[in-house]
């Protein structure tokens, strides 16, 4: 029997599977600002911690289960939306003494690599590496982020949710560096972020 048709069929099948694999879409999500919380805390004179948050943020992310290299997260925060429940302090934090929000209106994060590490107990965890640009200073940061859930929202939209905690040093971003010593305002800032995203389309 002539084997050529079998070989030909096998090649066609393999190519089809390959094309199918290459064409498997990653999922693109748009961050839901109403279900995004960005909270920070910083030490005050060794007496207490002051908590604050950024009230306005937006972003997008892509999750590609087949190819982690395509997974990415982009976040943009309005620096002027800083809120610590004290207007005088908020105005000072927004001034050139600290965040200089009128010169640097946005804080941005762009991931450069995302690696999924599945935990035995608990939600899958992503190790994110990316560039955080704050106060005009870009810095590479790394942190772990928990994937909390994937569900349909009340309106039938497909949603995923995430949670992460990280620590930054304000001096790394030249925020009040030298102006305020570390005993009066701590250098280490603890940041907690949790957000949901709504799937918008299959990413290219």
């Amino acid at each position, binding site marked *: 029997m002539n084997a050529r048709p079998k070989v030909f069929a096998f090649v066609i099948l393999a190519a089809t599977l390959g094309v199918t694999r290459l064409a498997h879409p990653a999922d693109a999500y748009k961050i839901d600002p109403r279900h995004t919380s960005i909270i920070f805390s910083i030490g005050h004179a060794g007496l207490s911690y002051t908590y604050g948050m950024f009230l306005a943020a937006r972003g997008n992310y892509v999750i590609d289960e087949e190819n982690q290299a395509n997974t990415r997260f982009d976040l943009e925060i309005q620096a002027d939306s800083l809120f610590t429940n004290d207007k005088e302090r908020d105005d000072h934090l927004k001034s*050139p003494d600290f965040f200089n929000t009128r*010169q640097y209106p946005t804080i941005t994060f762009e991931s450069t690599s995302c690696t999924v590490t599945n935990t035995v107990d608990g939600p899958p965890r992503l190790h994110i590496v990316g560039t955080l640009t704050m106060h005009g200073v870009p810095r590479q940061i790394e942190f772990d982020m928990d994937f909390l859930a994937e569900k349909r929202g009340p309106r039938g939209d497909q949603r995923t949710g995430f949670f992460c905690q990280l620590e930054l040093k304000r001096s790394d971003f030249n925020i009040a560096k030298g*102006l305020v010593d570390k005993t009066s305002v701590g250098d280490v800032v603890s940041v907690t972020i949790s957000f949901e995203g709504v799937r918008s389309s299959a990413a290219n």
Partner: protein
Amino acid sequence: MHQSELLYVAALPLAVAAIVTLAGRPLRLNAPTAWAMSVAFGYVAGQLGLATRTGDALSEFLHPREAAGWLPHAVLLALCATILAIGAPRPWNRAGIALAILLIIGLPVRLLHGSAYDLRWTLLEKSAAISLLAIALGLMWLALASVTEADHRRLRPVLLIVVTCIIAVVVSLSGVLVYGELCGVLAAALTGAFLASRTPHVAASAGVVTVSLGSLTLLSSFYAELTPTNAALLITAILVAAGPIPAVMSPRPERLKAALRVALTLLPLSIALLQTIAANRAPAAASPYWQ
């Protein structure tokens, strides 16, 4: 204020300005040039000294990030323009004037570049704002440079130092300490030049004062909470302190002219200072939760 800040805000610029003034004599620099150089170098030294708090003053100077980081460059360019305009033969003195014009147009563009205003304004609004700011800086430079040096030769630098110190306080109370410190640096540089100089030449430092003090007022208005009214009052005080006397006043006795200059300088300063203090003392909005 910490000791290191006193050193950089006061002692360093004062010392550098005085040294440059004294060094100008054996070098046979003409007095206006020496004055302009001492104020400019004193200011630059003070601002770079403050930048050492972050540990990378040279990097800050070579690659400024914040708007105020461009002021040392602007001050040195203003110094070049001044030296060319007053000391160089033709046609180099015209080059100094051209450099001054480029500087007062480019400075607002640089200081507001990339800011929230740059993102928000339309092209027409940007053009209008830059034009107005350039005209204001240009008029300030012209007014301060056009004064006859013999008019209140010793009074004008003293008044200018007082005005700069009060501006430092007003700017600091308007929510930005770093700009207040830089105003203090300029006041110290002016003081160093005045103490070491036999004959002050305030008009020769018109460009340096306009670029530094004018820019700090501009920055405090756009990036902090200095109100437009207070900014206008502070600029008025600078012009009255160091600028020309109106022609109608010229025939008056010298003491009367001096007294009027002092009074008209302190008036807008006092109003701006009192308004700023009052705004800071205003009680915080009552909490809706506690009655």
